């Protein structure tokens, strides 16, 4: 370990041929360009999705861990994934469908409500879990390096299994009520990706804020509850007067929920609304991504 000033002089300029990324393979071959540079961050650093991709094994394992741990030592296990939207649907069917006579676009109300509650349960669980994910994994953050974004992403991804399980019940209900399945269903994966992206954006951003402001933990459940009412889940979009309907397009989830129903029930899609929703989702995700990167630098010092 010589003094740095001395060896700076004998730093030869060599054309760089070595691999820049990943393990250099054998020992002793020092790449010309550093594999990593550590320095004080600028206010806006690039997103570095490549790094997230490099750690995809960790993402997978964290997702599997979240799933395994969630239903460990529960009697009903994964049945909770179905019970949550199912019981909500039953209660809503009774109060809104039966007693209040809520319209449901000609679809039996229980099916109508469940079709909305299925993606909503996924979204709301994903946002609350990922919002609390960084704080819940503080032991990892202070002890190891990895792209922190993996933690909230894993929380969202682990919710997909619950979604799949609950989806089985929807299929059974569709068959029971004799609603025909149409080609519209091919849009389902696209919609799921959109909802997951939106959840990663919002949940990831909140999780980063939560590191510094623990208020998030208390505010989150409340706003998630509000979300249920500002999104057409228990009521159809058509319930709103025509001139106010545009208000709901600000809520990117609204068009997505309507989209799910179109996919399930073979109704025409509202493409412009979906396009706007997608655009808003992208803006949220990109903003959240950069914002996360900026806050990420101080996680270990603050958490």
């Amino acid at each position, binding site marked *: 370990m010589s003094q*740095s000033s001395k060896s700076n002089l004998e730093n030869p300029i060599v054309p760089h041929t070595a691999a820049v990324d990943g393990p250099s393979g054998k020992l002793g071959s020092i790449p010309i360009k550093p594999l990593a540079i*550590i*320095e004080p961050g600028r206010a806006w650093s690039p997103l570095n999705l490549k790094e997230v991709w490099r750690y995809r094994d960790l993402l997978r394992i964290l997702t599997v*861990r979240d799933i395994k*741990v969630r239903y460990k030592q529960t009697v009903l296990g994964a049945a909770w994934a179905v019970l949550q939207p199912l019981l909500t649907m039953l209660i809503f069917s009774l109060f809104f469908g039966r007693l209040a006579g809520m319209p449901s676009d000609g679809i039996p109300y229980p099916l109508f409500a469940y079709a909305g509650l299925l993606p909503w349960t996924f979204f709301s669980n994903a946002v609350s879990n990922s919002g609390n994910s960084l704080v819940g994994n503080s032991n990892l953050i202070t*002890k190891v390096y990895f792209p922190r974004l993996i933690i909230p992403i894993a929380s969202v991804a682990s919710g997909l299994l619950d979604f799949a399980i609950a989806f089985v019940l929807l299929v059974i209900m569709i068959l029971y009520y004799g609603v025909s399945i149409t080609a519209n269903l091919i849009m389902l994966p696209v919609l799921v990706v959109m909802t997951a992206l939106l959840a990663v954006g919002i949940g990831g951003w909140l999780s980063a804020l939560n590191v510094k*402001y*623990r*208020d998030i933990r208390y505010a989150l459940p409340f706003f998630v509850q509000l979300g249920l009412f500002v999104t057409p889940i228990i009521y159809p979009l058509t319930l709103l007067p025509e001139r106010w309907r545009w208000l709901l397009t600000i809520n990117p989830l609204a068009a997505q929920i309507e989209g799910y129903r179109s996919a399930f029930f073979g109704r025409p899609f509202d493409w412009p609304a979906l396009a706007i929703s997608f655009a808003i989702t992208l803006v949220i995700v990109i903003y959240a991504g950069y914002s996360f990167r900026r806050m990420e630098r101080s996680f270990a010092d603050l958490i």
Partner: protein
Amino acid sequence: MRPIIKAQGIGKKFRIGASIEAYATIRESLVRTAKRPLDRIKGVSAVANQDFWALRDISFEIFPGDVVGIIGRNGAGKSTLLKILSRITEPTTGRVELYGRIGSLLEVGTGFHPELTGRENIYMNGSILGMRRSQINTHLDEIVDFSGVERFLDTPLKRFSTGMQLRLAFAVAAHLDPEILVIDEVLAVGDAEFQKKCLNKMNGVSKSGRTVLFVSHNTQALTALCSKGILLRDGISVCQGDINSVLADYLGNDRDAETVWERDKPGDSDIYFERVAVSLSGDQPKMELIVESRMRVKRKFNDSFISVDILDAGGGYLMQATPRATPFISFTEGTAEISTVTTVELPPLIPGRYQISCWIGSHFTETIDWVREIAAFEIVSSPSSERTYRHSSDRGFCVPISKVEII
């Protein structure tokens, strides 16, 4: 040869005081922002938020195959340096270039989950430390073998004993394959046999030509493993180079950090301690503690005697030296000061920081002055020269000289 790690002028600043709290709430933030102009008028803010540099202007180069010990007292900035190198926290100033993949082990068992089985935790922990799944697969048998927990592999981790968890954790880490390995005092845990196993393993890692950065307070482990050293003191790199010379600097200088005590204002009693200096001489296991004390005499008093107490770092009593058990200091009219030198033959103490108190009295019930926990000395090497594993005060502070024969 070109370095594998190149650090230039790295520094890390923390705010101390009320500024950044882990549990800040938005309300506090708002209140603080609102109050800031007010504080400025009152001139408060400058005092409330002080910057604290945990590291300052650290530069070094580490070459492939170096095994570097990072040495320093508690709070010298060792862990902060490791955290910066392992990209857990960002430096405030400076730049580090890494020319190899870095794997860090700042805590054994990071990411272990009690509900998951031993096998699942191996994959979990391995991937957190940056291993690929295929890599873990190829090493799985070795890991299981090294940890010795094969019977419990499919049992939830929460049923494991602490020792088993630890062995499993180290086993995973030991099979990490990065070009640069960063280790923070992980040997401080586990039983003696396991510590030895870990040391051997680490020795193997360094022999294989990997670069290792190693933080430890264990002088034996440092000399056994490392070729080079970096000495940190109060966040500043004071010495770099060959491990033995760096250790010598550490042992030589840091030892007398708190060894001199001087009273800042005159004492109340007729005779009081004014200055006490402690120093060590000799080598383990036969070291001597030399206590020089100077007493100010205000008024003539009965003949007196002194004693020196040795306490552990937490202030627990270990022993008391009473060189002469009857009064031997006599004061005549006009005596203004008395100086004494007390030599204490130390028993074979385990490494650690020890404090001393000094007492003067004319009878064991008649205290004239008693200055408590005023100075400290540090034992850095083990009393048993062949010992490579850590001492723990759980087993007492003294390692008596003993011998054994097979009969």
